[in-house]
């Protein structure tokens, strides 16, 4: 038993050590201003000011105090109108999951920090049950808003009901949950089917005589895979000159995608389109093409399509090596911020489901500006 405990402690320590960033930093900061003011401000009521009084008073008091860091800390609080931070609990998937998630997490970290009037608690897990536990802990601690990007669509009813009972507003981002609409305030999501449809429409617009497509799917069962597959499946079923040479999962993995394409090349079958459901897999596919000297890109033999708009992928587009990249917009923080602001102001949310604006980039039209603005 002892050995197991030691092992688990070590594991916990290592995991904790890797979660660096706003999450850990915030806790420390929220305590700091009050403490500093208490110990260093000369006025005897400074402590009360710092805790309860309007933020600018606290800032003034603290500024009089000799310690510079006290002033700095107090100032960061200032933007919040009444000096109280809005408490948000954010449950996200593992930021290392993909470039998309990394960008998503960074965007949230930048938005939900003290400078913007938020006190945020970030928790990460790619497992649904762990996420649910995190949510329940947050509700017990008491938060104003609960933001969830659920690992799985099911099992959240209990948490959402608890949140409602506790008066905590729930906002879903990035992924939807199977739950009654009345249980959450808003959901801000990507429409994966629309992403697929945009891509397929673009492909149809290329006016090829024949479409022989290598379709490399994402991890089976994920929303992104289902949405991006659906549009293509429908088109292939509807058109006579659209054919899937192979439809195989690459599990979002470049290496697997390379093997799938390699296998088609080795068997000598003809193809002229690669429809990869993320950038990594498109990259793997291109590696296989390069090894066999099959030309790809703008006005070449094979059309290469990817998704997610990683910066390096958009650069491939700019260089004409790929043809198309569909955006999956990770920047939800500003949308969430807007929803919270209007809820704070007591306004009704006009639409519960907010679908984010997402583009598809064509290698022929993309500019350096697009790469800088939309690359993740």
């Amino acid at each position, binding site marked *: 038993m002892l050995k197991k405990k030691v092992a688990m402690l070590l*594991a916990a320590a290592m995991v904790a050590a890797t979660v660096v960033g706003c999450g850990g930093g915030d806790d420390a900061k929220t305590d700091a201003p009050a403490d500093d003011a208490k110990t260093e401000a000369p006025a005897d009521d400074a402590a009360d000011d710092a805790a309860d009084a309007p933020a600018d008073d606290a800032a003034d008091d603290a500024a009089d105090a000799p310690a510079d860091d006290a002033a700095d800390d107090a100032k960061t609080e200032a933007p919040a109108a009444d000096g109280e931070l809005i408490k948000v609990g954010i449950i996200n998937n593992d930021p290392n999951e993909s470039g998309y998630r990394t960008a998503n997490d960074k965007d949230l970290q930048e938005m939900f920090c003290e400078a913007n009037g938020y006190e945020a608690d970030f928790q990460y897990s790619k497992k649904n049950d762990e996420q649910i536990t995190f949510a329940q802990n947050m509700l017990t601690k008491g938060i104003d808003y609960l933001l969830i990007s659920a690992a799985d669509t099911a099992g959240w009813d209990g948490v959402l009901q608890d949140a409602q009972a506790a008066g905590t507003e729930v906002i879903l981002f990035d992924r939807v949950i199977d739950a009654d609409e009345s249980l959450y305030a808003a959901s801000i999501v990507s429409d994966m089917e629309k992403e697929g449809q945009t891509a397929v429409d673009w492909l149809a617009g290329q006016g090829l005589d024949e479409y022989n497509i290598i379709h490399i*799917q994402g991890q089976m069962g994920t929303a992104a895979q289902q949405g991006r597959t659906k549009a293509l499946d429908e088109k292939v079923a509807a058109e006579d000159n659209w054919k899937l040479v192979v439809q195989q999962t690459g599990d979002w993995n470049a290496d697997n995608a390379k093997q799938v394409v390699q296998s088609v090349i080795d068997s000598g079958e003809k193809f002229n389109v690669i429809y990869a459901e993320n950038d990594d897999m498109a990259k793997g596919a291109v590696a296989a093409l390069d090894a066999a000297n099959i030309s790809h890109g703008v006005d070449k033999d094979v059309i290469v399509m990817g998704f997610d708009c990683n910066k390096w992928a958009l650069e491939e587009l700019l260089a004409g090596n790929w043809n198309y990249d569909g955006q999956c917009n990770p920047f939800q923080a500003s949308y969430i911020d807007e929803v919270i602001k209007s809820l704070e102001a007591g306004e009704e949310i006009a639409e519960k489901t907010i679908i984010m604006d997402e583009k598809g980039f064509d290698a022929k039209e993309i500019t350096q500006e697009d790469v800088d603005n939309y690359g993740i």
Partner: protein
Amino acid sequence: MQKNEVKKPNESMLSRMVRHQMFIPVLALVILAVFNLIADPAFFKITVGQNSSGNMVLQGFLISILNDGSELAILAIGMTLVTAASGGQDISVGAAVAIAGSVLLRILGGGNSRPEELAAPIIVAFLVSCLVAMLFGAFNGVLVAYFKIQPMIATLILYTAGRSIAAWINNNELPVITDPSLGYYGGFIPGVPIPTPFFIAAICVAIIFLVLKFTNLGLYTQSVGINENSAKLNGLNPQVIKVITYVIMGLCVAVVGLIKVSRISTINYSTIAKDIEMDAILAVALGGNALSGGKFNMAASIFGAYVIQFLTSTLYKFKVSSDALPAYKAVVVIVLVVISAPTVKEWFGNVTKKFKVKEVA
């Protein structure tokens, strides 16, 4: 490796063959090969073509198998030793590959995620990644050897945390290296028509065979695996030997990290070498090695690794649908593992013996 196999004079050729450890992997390969030959003889066609950088290279399914199976073969070396010495498996291999790859890219990019040129020679970066991977290997080894934690539990720590550590090494950035020389290790060296990973694997295999032949590593590993106490009484230090096998595993991991990163010139922390530990363990099992440790046959493990890749390529070739792929693999795995289980083998041996006795009577 099977020097100590006792040859009974009255045993038939067939039953000796069946009892040989290489029998199962070879049989599996033959079945797969025959199946492919009947279904489509073009499977075995090897052609010479040009790649996009203008080199003449060999192409074909067999070349792809040798190419893609290399990582698995290299990992099988380490996994065999770890299994033999500690009687358990290292399940942190995939995560450790992510760490090694991340270190490699960090050094090459010099902290810049999109370097114009390499910040350090590849060999330097590779040596540093070897060092880091061996340290993590030693960490696993110490947990197993000195703290006597079950290998699967001990390596679970790194399995869980490894990919986060890998991401943290590069500040969560995904460095992309544009320098073509990095691509040589996972692709082709200009002027050489055979994929480089195959050479790397061949070098690793040659080294481990020389080590096993000219040092006592093999003997010591097996004695520790068979009976730790008697090994101790004979003057061996079981702890040190166990740690050494995990460090060697770390070295294998670093080599695989180089190949994996080189293949795509970048990294994805969550998908690089995903689930590769399971295939590596399977390679060891397929080679007829007891997963509970002790005696091992290195050649059989390495051969097993290529058989697994052969199977994967065959499934891709026949375009087994995405949903069904794991199921097919599982069925094949079950069959292979069951027939290579010692009890089934014994039963096979008895049956052939009885058959022979009857014939004589």
